[in-house]
């Protein structure tokens, strides 16, 4: 019998000037989610159940960019996406373009288990949700005042904002975005995926699972899909490990980041920590991203090349850590 391990994240790319109380708020949420996961693991829930449970908690809390509290599209609405993957048989499920489903990660799980497909999106996904009887709410439920303010700033700056959690006072958010103009796909747009959430778990039976959920980029084009619902990019789990990524979606997709960790473990025979370091160091080029990962042997690791990543991790032997920088 192996040992369990769990990690959660609330996004890579944190404003260095983020007010202390926001940092504390984030750490409290991460701690709470870890506790939920740990408690579930101690009750012998399987890895796939635990990742879903924890990500549901993150979606329900308005703090990070998923479920309630999601970033807004250019039209001021919320379009959410999520994916989940079960290591043992590499079963997976993903959803995009959700506007009324309260917990996207749970719908992703239902796609995996109750549909003949792996990925459903937009009206088709919403139809499926209705048929499955999942909890549905008005789009307004997901929209927070903070985000409405951030969208306005983003439009003023005419860029995609990286950290929408900077208090919407005056133009400090917009000028922060403009002071450090970043390039993405060769175009002058500031791009960090603000606070996507995720969870990876290995249970006592050595089964790995991963799940990721997000509202995507602030001010994104309607219909834009990022890395979070893409198996191999934002989320991946195999017999060896479970991985969830966050950061510049386009960079994560190009580098198939989540799959990469597993691939170097498999093909270069690297251990988890080495694999995570290798991938972050060598596979992101100009891209900015972070990830959390667990291995079937009960290890947990995280890596990021951004300024900070909201994260927490814990292992069965009592280790527990929550961090921002």
């Amino acid at each position, binding site marked *: 019998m192996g040992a369990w391990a769990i990690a959660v994240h609330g996004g890579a790319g944190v404003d260095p000037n983020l007010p202390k109380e926001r940092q504390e708020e984030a750490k409290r949420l991460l701690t709470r989610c870890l506790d939920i996961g740990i408690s579930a693991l101690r009750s012998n829930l399987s890895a796939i159940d635990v990742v879903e449970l924890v990500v549901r908690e993150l979606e329900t809390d308005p703090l990070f960019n998923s479920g309630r509290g999601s970033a807004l599209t250019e039209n001021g609405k919320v379009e959410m996406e999520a994916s989940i993957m079960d290591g043992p048989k590499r079963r997976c499920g993903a959803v995009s373009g959700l506007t009324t489903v309260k917990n996207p990660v749970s719908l992703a799980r239902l796609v995996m288990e109750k549909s003949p497909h792996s990925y459903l999106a937009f009206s088709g996904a919403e139809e499926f949700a209705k048929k499955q009887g999942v909890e549905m709410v008005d789009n307004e439920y997901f929209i927070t005042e903070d985000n409405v303010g951030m969208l306005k700033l983003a439009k003023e700056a005419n860029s995609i904002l990286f950290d929408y959690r900077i208090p919407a006072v005056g133009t400090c958010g917009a000028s922060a975005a403009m002071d450090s103009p970043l390039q993405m796909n060769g175009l002058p747009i500031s791009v960090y995926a603000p606070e996507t959430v995720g969870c990876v778990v290995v249970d006592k039976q050595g089964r790995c699972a991963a799940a990721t959920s997000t509202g995507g980029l602030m001010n994104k084009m*309607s219909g834009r899909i990022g890395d979070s619902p893409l198996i191999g990019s934002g989320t991946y789990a195999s017999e060896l490990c479970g991985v969830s990524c966050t950061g510049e979606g386009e960079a994560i997709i190009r580098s198939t980041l989540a799959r990469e960790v597993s691939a170097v473990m498999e093909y270069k025979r690297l251990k988890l920590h080495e694999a995570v370091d290798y991938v972050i160091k060598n596979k992101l080029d100009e891209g900015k991203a972070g990830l959390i990962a667990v291995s079937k042997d009960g290890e947990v690791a995280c890596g990021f090349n951004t300024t900070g990543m909201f994260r927490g991790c814990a292992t069965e032997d009592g280790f527990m850590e929550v961090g921002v920088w």
Partner: protein
Amino acid sequence: MGWAIAVHGGAGDIPLSLPPEKRLPREAALRRCLDVGIAALKAHNHPLDVVELVVRELENNPHFNAGKGSVLTTSGTVEMEACIMDGKTMKCGAVSGVSTVVNAISLARLVMDKTPHIYLAFDGAEAFAREQGLETVEMSHFITPENIERLKQAQEADRVQLDYTQPIQKEVPKDAALADGDSQIGTVGCVAVDSEGNLATATSTGGIVNKMVGRIGDTPIIGAGTYANHLCAVSATGRGEAIIRGTIARDVAAVMEFKGLSLKEAAAYAMDRVPRGNAGLIAVSSTGEVAMLFNTTGMFRACATEDGYSEFSIWDSPTE
């Protein structure tokens, strides 16, 4: 080293008894598309332009499951998806849920070139197409009588149909494959490399017959159905759900990089990860090699290299 190009028109259980009236138009189309690609490479067009051009041709041909001739969703509608990737820059573009754009692959290219994003879908993709002035038509343009018939059969059988497949008794609906002697169309794709080692891949599809509205397959998922880097360019076809889980296209490149395998060895290695009857792929390497593999009964495919090699096949032995 030199240029190389490969094209596919889908993998599946193409019956050996495929009647000539089904086989010949597809053969002719593939040959013509290959020639279009070869001419473009000889004229020193960038592989990205070459693969887009070739896939546009395949989309316009009603005998393949892409663009005109796309299979239908359970509602009788068309939802097309496509993906394109440049090996050197690793820029990519993808679209899903496209119903009125004549050439989905060109829309994917515009997403890559004209937006800060990689992937646009459904209404957002359609709106973007109009903004960009792409050719759009009524959805009926894409729907063919054969596909209306296929959908009817699939719905009568109440199963999700993978083109080309024979009936296999399986418990899990996801793995269930349907027989249909008439069902012989599949995803299309093209991979190309020029004599400077520039690589590109493009894949386009209507998906699977009777799919749920909103279902996305492997084609637009970077690393699953489509992938290119500095080592190789790959386009896969088959049961989307298996290709996604196996990250097939990415794996070919990964084992070349991490295990030092040759293109052909890498393609075989990646295909091993997919259960029999589920997939096929075409690939070219930066040094001008070509690989075309499948674990289904057949795969419509063709390839050519600068040193004069060319192949056209459906099943294991070349048809000439």
